């Protein structure tokens, strides 16, 4: 009998990460595209580091940041009383950092494509920058935002190295499908590994097809 729990955990992780990522990336993309501030290019390069770094390296640094002595781990412990490492919340936080560039880039590209005169027209018509963001920029960037959501979802679904480093493999908590597949192969349980792997293929294919359609619009 196949254990669907890792797949459920993967989908839950991807869904939560995607929601947070879109909420974080949209205002961040606005700040990068429309607001001038010192150190912007340095900040952007820092955010995009997960594209260039191996997941294990990211996971290694996240271990420190999210550990009890790290600033994020310590702050979380003060707030919730519990730790971040080897918890579901911890792998969500790791996934958000790891997938941020994949959410940010399509949204940023979509914001750049919005005619700047639309923004100016909204300002002249009396809209504040925040209202302009919600009433003009976001509705005219829906394709980019949808593409970002899909890419973030798929990227979070497939995360392995980072999750292994900061979450380990705790059943019902951090043992997501990608880790379960790895462990099944290690244990020579090829039947379960094949079934779990097969679940990924149609999901990823359909989502990518959808992204391609969106990018053509």
């Amino acid at each position, binding site marked *: 009998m196949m254990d669907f729990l890792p797949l459920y955990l993967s989908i839950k992780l991807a869904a939560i990460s995607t929601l947070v990522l879109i909420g974080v990336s949209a205002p961040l993309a606005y700040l990068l595209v429309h607001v001038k501030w010192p150190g912007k290019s340095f900040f952007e390069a820092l955010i995009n580091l997960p594209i260039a770094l191996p997941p294990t390296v990211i996971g290694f640094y996240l271990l420190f940041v999210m550990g009890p002595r790290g600033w994020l781990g310590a702050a979380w412990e003060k707030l919730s009383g519990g730790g971040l490492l080897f918890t579901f919340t911890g792998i969500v936080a790791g996934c958000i950092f790891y997938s941020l560039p994949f959410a940010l880039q399509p949204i940023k590209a979509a914001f750049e494509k919005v005619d700047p005169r639309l923004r100016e027209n909204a300002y*002249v018509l009396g*809209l504040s920058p925040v209202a302009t963001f919600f009433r*003009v920029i976001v509705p005219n960037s829906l394709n980019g935002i949808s593409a970002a959501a899909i890419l973030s979802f798929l990227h979070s679904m497939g995360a392995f190295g980072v999750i292994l480093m900061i979450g380990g493999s705790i059943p019902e908590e951090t043992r997501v499908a990608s880790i379960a597949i790895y462990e099944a192969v290690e244990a020579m349980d090829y039947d379960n590994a094949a079934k779990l792997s097969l679940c990924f293929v149609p999901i990823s294919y359909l989502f990518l097809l959808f992204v391609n359609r969106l990018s053509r619009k």
Partner: protein
Amino acid sequence: MSLQCKLIKQTDYFTIEVDFVCPEEKTLALIGPSGSGKTTIIRMLAGLHKPDRGRIECGGRTLFDSENGIHLSPQKREMGYVFQDYTLFPHLTIRENAGFAAKDVQEADYLLDYFGLKHLGDRKPHQVSGGERQRCAICQALAKRPRLLLLDEPFSALDVVTRRILRTELKRIKGERKLSTIYVTHDIHEALFMADEILPVVDGRIERDWLEKIISPASSSGAQTKALREPKLSLVY
């Protein structure tokens, strides 16, 4: 509402240095060749560009004063602005666009009816013609009930016939609403038709004798020269 301004701004090619007044309920046309700084001037008035130095006063309110560090945002200037190209919001219908900043929904409906767009209210901007889009842009600017209307070559992308119809419609409603208007154009006939006063702008400066220079008796027809001297009687095409 009258507008007084003195603006200085360094651009890549020249320094804009203008000083003019738009009297209450009058239309002032800024005319000049392409790249002479007309659009930059009108954008400074709207708050979309910041002058290096100067002062803008509109109906007793100071909108910009470099000496006292005043620079009101476009949102606070209470002006209507019609852009050169179509700047309707593509995700909204014609009705939603017209009423985007309307203080009163009925106002937008009235304007749509006035400009003959009521039957197109449910369409998106890409589903109507260029003339209809620009009519809607005028509705959008007027529905806000601005104190001053700024028009940046609003009909330059339209064909001659549509342009003539639109400027007649615009002139009528402008008169009805007693709006002060600043109108940017490079079309002398349009300026003569729309404006009470014409201000030629060349390389960022006001050159009052520019019109006389380009349409001198030696280089133009008698009708054009007469039109310049008697703007109220002119509509030469």
